[in-house]
């Protein structure tokens, strides 16, 4: 990567790195404890995809909306979702972000515009579009970002939503996180070539494909899309090309399944967006080794604290099983 970082504020670069590192470390920690079976919820790790969540969310304000999916830990944290409440949710606790009713796939933190993630593939796309509609109808200054992956891109809900977003010029950004796989199925087995939305007329919905493992590329692409949305000019589409290095669900690699080669996985692991960015930052003197070391320690402390909080939190009471059926 030859990239001129000089034009960016130091603070921004540090934040981008810190947020990626934090998401990476949180997930590694979850992964390392998952075999204990205390987090009784299906996890979908986004290790290797940190640059997308962070590069996008760094352009957003607290009141902007995001819509996310089953693979949503990174989106939640990048948008500013509370870490303790995330971990408590994985531990099925009453103190979890969804009070132990949602689990890993159903995260929420309305205080930062995260209005709930869906585990129905593609399900969050219309909802994020609707958040854009509400924003427009209420004449609010917000944008709505929708994260979805290649499996979701197979769904008709994407076409229906994009059509509507263009029709109404909604302040919506479609972030296509193409990690190439839906479970074991490669995108080439499901889609006939490049996604069709790259062919959308530019003035209706600009679209671009970027290296999803480069946080600065994602950041730049999103910046333009956010500007367009804030100017009320309509939606944008960003494809972030990346790779799911872990297995579809649970902890660890799934290379023994044989639907992809170990070499391919190694190749993409070598493109780890967090490490790649740290190399650039070190090279350009934005950060030094000591500063990175301090960041690591800060994050480790925070993670320990979050896990302790979760493990010590109360479980939901059985007699509350019917609570939250209807809102008064």
């Amino acid at each position, binding site marked *: 990567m030859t990239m001129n970082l000089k034009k960016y504020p130091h603070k921004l670069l540090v934040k981008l790195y810190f947020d990626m590192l934090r998401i990476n470390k949180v997930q590694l920690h979850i992964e390392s404890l998952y075999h204990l079976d205390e987090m009784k919820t299906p996890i979908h790790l986004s290790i290797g995809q940190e640059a997308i969540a962070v590069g996008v969310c760094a352009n957003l304000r607290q009141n902007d909306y995001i819509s996310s999916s089953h693979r949503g830990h990174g989106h939640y944290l990048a948008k500013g979702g509370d870490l303790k409440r995330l971990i408590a949710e994985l531990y099925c606790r009453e103190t979890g972000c969804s009070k132990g009713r949602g689990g890993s796939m159903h995260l929420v933190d309305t205080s930062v515009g995260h209005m709930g993630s869906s585990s129905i593939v593609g399900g969050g796309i219309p909802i994020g579009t609707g*958040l854009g509609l509400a924003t427009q109808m209420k004449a609010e200054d917000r944008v709505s970002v929708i994260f979805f992956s290649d499996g979701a891109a197979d769904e008709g809900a994407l076409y229906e939503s994009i059509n509507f977003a263009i029709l109404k010029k909604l302040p919506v950004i479609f972030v296509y996180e193409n990690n190439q796989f839906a479970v074991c199925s490669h995108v080439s087995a499901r889609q006939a070539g490049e996604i069709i939305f790259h062919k959308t007329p530019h003035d209706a919905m600009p679209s671009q494909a970027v290296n999803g493992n480069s946080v600065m590329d994602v950041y730049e692409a999103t910046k333009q899309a956010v500007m367009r949305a804030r100017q009320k000019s309509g939606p944008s589409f960003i494809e972030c090309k990346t790779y799911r290095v872990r297995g579809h669900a649970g902890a660890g690699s799934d290379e023994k399944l044989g639907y992809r080669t170990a070499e391919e996985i190694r190749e993409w692991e070598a493109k780890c967006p967090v490490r790649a960015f740290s190399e650039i930052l070190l090279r350009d003197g934005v950060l030094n080794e000591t500063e990175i070391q301090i960041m690591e320690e800060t994050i480790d402390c925070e993670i320990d604290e979050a896990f302790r909080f979760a493990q010590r939190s109360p479980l939901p009471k059985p007699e509350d099983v019917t609570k939250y059926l209807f809102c008064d």
Partner: protein
Amino acid sequence: MPWTKIKSDVNEPNYYLESDENIRRLSYSEAIREAMDQALELDQRVFIMGQGVDDPGAMFGTTLNLHKKYGSQRVFDTPLAENALTGIATGAAIGGMRPVYFHNRPDFLFLAMDQLVNHASKWYYMFGGAVNVPIVLWACIGRGWGSAAQHSQALQGLFMHIPGLKLIMPSTCYDAKGLMLSAIADNNPVLIIEHRLNFRHKGFVPETPYRVPIGKGIIRKQGKDITFVAISHMVTEAYKAAEELSKEGIEAEVIDLRTLRPLDEEIILRSVSKTGRLLIADCGWKTGGITAEISALVAEKGFEFLKAPIRRVACQDVPTPSGYTLEEAFYVGSNDILNAAREILQIR
């Protein structure tokens, strides 16, 4: 909250006010239109969407010219994309709006099942009460005139199965307005299933906005000998049958459930405890439907009241045929209710 100003929990004073010349009468569609008009007027968050809501047909007249009064931002036609548009309505509701999404037919809701069932109905519970979804979906059963298998389905049994979704089926002009206003004021997803034959009614509708309680049935006719539990268009049929029996000195109690979820269990059980006999009439299918659910309820909680087996009057378990001779055989009405009631009462 603009809705607190509206009188809530108001019940229709009298079912058949036919004789009273001085009351204000509206057609069924005018009653719904008046609810929509008043909701749009009252609350900036309310908007109407649906295929053709701004066309001359205006969803059976229920949204007629409202786009002219409130603008096409608040009353708008939609693409034929039922699933995403349901999700978009859900998202808009999460974002602080109060959408009302109209469909010509419940059949089309099948295309929206993912967003309605997997999303809107789950959001409040799944996130531990963090986010609620105040949307209203409306769809009208298209019985008759050769509508056939894909334009006439009465899907209340299916939707009653879904926790987190309120389900309303009005039968009178008064309730069509009052329940619509309650549905819009409600903080949860509400599905209103209408019936085409209800649109023949003209009835008492006060002009000032009012709300009919969700989750409460009403007794349309008092009786001591047998209980008829009915919904929507079948209330009219059950009432007719009850009047017929009256002539023979048998008094049937007619309950209009109005809401299927939450279900007013108490009104059913109280009536059965008095009459000891139960007939349930539905305009949908029998198997796994609402008549099955209500039978099970009474078997579980009111078995000791029963003097005779429960009878169910519902459509046959086949897709709706188109031809009118077959339609005739498929649908049920007051005669079927009458016959079943006579069997329960062991009279002929």
